[in-house]
């Protein structure tokens, strides 16, 4: 009985705490904007070879970022639209990637290449967008409802920018006195 009572008490104690803190939990960190140079510096550290780092330029109405994970070897985060609630776009920066079935699209970086690989087009439009550049690659895995997907793809392309490592390094040196390795 005492064990049961303690279990109940712990639930009563912990549940509201969890509810209030869940939004601020480490797992729910948001992706940095292109002006947050120190945060972008850590992303650059995660893939030291990459000549570009992904960042948020401008989020269209109804979009937010979530689940930022920066670790040695890769950085990932989610882009979530209120029109595709349970299907976030997973953005990942790695040192390389294998472009499977992608067709070239206009490049988004200087000296780089971009590809679009569609996996399905009905009933949902799913696929991966690739930005490949020297020393790195950013992938965007999306899964949108057919119809709204055109506007969502446009939002996606305008939300994520790619900041060159050279420019980031210069900003870090000027503003923080830090030099990227």
């Amino acid at each position, binding site marked *: 009985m*005492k064990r049961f009572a303690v279990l109940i008490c712990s639930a009563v104690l912990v549940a509201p705490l969890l509810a209030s803190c869940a939004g601020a939990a*480490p797992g729910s960190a948001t992706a940095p904007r292109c002006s947050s140079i120190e945060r972008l510096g850590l992303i650059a550290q995660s893939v030291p070879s990459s000549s570009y780092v992904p960042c948020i330029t401008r989020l269209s109405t109804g979009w937010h970022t979530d689940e930022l994970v920066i670790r040695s*070897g890769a950085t990932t985060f989610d882009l979530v639209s209120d029109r595709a609630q349970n299907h976030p776009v997973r953005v990942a920066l790695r040192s390389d990637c294998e472009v499977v079935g992608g067709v070239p699209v206009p490049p988004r970086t200087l000296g780089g290449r971009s590809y679009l690989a569609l996996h399905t087009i009905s009933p949902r439009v799913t696929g991966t967008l690739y930005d490949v550049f020297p020393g790195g690659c950013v992938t965007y895995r999306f899964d949108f409802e057919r119809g709204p997907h055109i506007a969502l793809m446009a939002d996606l392309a305008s939300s994520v920018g790619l900041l060159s490592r050279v420019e980031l390094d210069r900003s870090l040196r000027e503003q923080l006195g830090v030099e990227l390795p």
Partner: protein
Amino acid sequence: MSTVTGPDGAAPITPVVLGGGRRRRPSGEPPPLPHRVPASGYWYLGGLAAAVALETTMFFSTPRDWLTRLDDAVLDALASARTAPVTAALRQVDQLGSSTAIRAISLSTIAVLLLTRGFRQLLTYLAVLLVVVLTTGNLAFALGRMRPTTVSILVPWQGFSHPSAPVALFAAALSGAICTLVPSGRWRHRVVLAGGALVVVLGLARSYLGVDHPTDVLAALAIGWAFPALAYRLVVPEDVFPLRYHPHANRAHLDLSGARGRAAHRALVQQLGITATSIEPFGLQASAGSTPLRIRTADQIVLFGKFYALNHLRSDRSYKLTRMVLYGRLEDEKPFATVRRLVEYEDHLLRLLRDNGLPVPSPHGFVEITPEREYLIVMDFIDGARELGAAPAGEQEIDDGLRIVRSLWRAGVAHRDLKPSNLLVKDHQVYLIDVAFATVRPTPWRQAVDLANMMLTLALVSDPALVYERAVRQFAPEDIAEGFAATRGITMPTQLRTRLRQDPRDLLGEFRRLAPSRAPVPIQVWTMRRIGLLAAVLAAGALAAVGVLAYGQIAGLL
């Protein structure tokens, strides 16, 4: 006459001596056992304050740049001292901060606390882990600090650099395990030193390997080690919630050796004029609501004492809450607000019953050990007495027992805990002890239940027909019928219920056959409070499953 030095070197305070060796505690004199935070507590507090200052500094760019330069200088020095064997060894040390190691420590601690029924420690451990995880994660994200840039990083990493999450979580898991599992004393001291050394070595290793700045490690030490150490001292201090691993040990019983024992001796002299030559635990098996003691005085008198502390008050609260949820409002069972109220109540009841001619141990009052936290109530010790259930009872004991209930009724009191261990026999006279549960002007059926419980207790060591025959000499048959019509499992103390189950006779049925027939007396009351509590319990039960899962994920245990 002794004198007491006033605070801050003020002039000595001359105590006022009352009759019988009692004295008033003058203003400025500490109580017998002052509530003190150990010296290390101030160090931990200082560490936390320094961490708050450091974190505040980190939010401002200029001082943060200075700190980064300082960090870089230390890291450069460490990197220049790198050698292959040391690097290889410290790579292994770095595994202490891995999620596997932290999970292993945390889950083992939780398992041991569950097995040893250290529920308060367990809840505190979980809460502290959660606070450390959330504080570390949120601070790291808010500050967004890069990893060191001037040296090469030799091990994998994840997340922002400040504060160092692996060091903070490892420290929190380990300090929690030590504070909740290792009893205080020489061994605890050694284990704390060893644990602290491990945490420091992990921090040094991570700086050497270039993955954390030195200030990342310092902040993590404050959050992961100093904060939990303070939290455990405040919430589950070991002097109030002792850690015992002996199979028969009861965590409700306090250790009366050392400072607490000396304080009890001093308090007895100063507050009651009793010079005790020894204070020793007595009858621990029969008590869980206090620490029972036998006190021998310089006059060769033996007294009985009950030591009450915060843990007993909290047990009383949870016991009454559980009863309310399970059984409804059996009678007015409001929990006591403070330890002082609890001990005052028992002292008052003893005096009330004595004044009404009941054979209870004569009260001598109570003494204050630590204000609002620890008290010792003193009463006569019935030397040479045995439990009523220990030997067959004759007509004299039966009449005595029944007379006790008669006197309780006359005094307007229900004892509410009549059972073999609370009825002592000495020279064929029955004594009533442990009046802490008694209530004045109780619910009417509760007094009738006292009669039934007394008759059942007497029948266990005699014959129910004889008990009934003696009872009708003092009570109307209708009173007896009411008692057994109101009696059922939840109205009987656990010990009495157990003994009845062990007895091959159907004593309750026998009495019901002997007494006039009467419809059962309703005793459970469904109040709005009980309904609300029950609803809260069910809702909390549903939340518990979700909470445990979410907790495990946030705290990194799953």
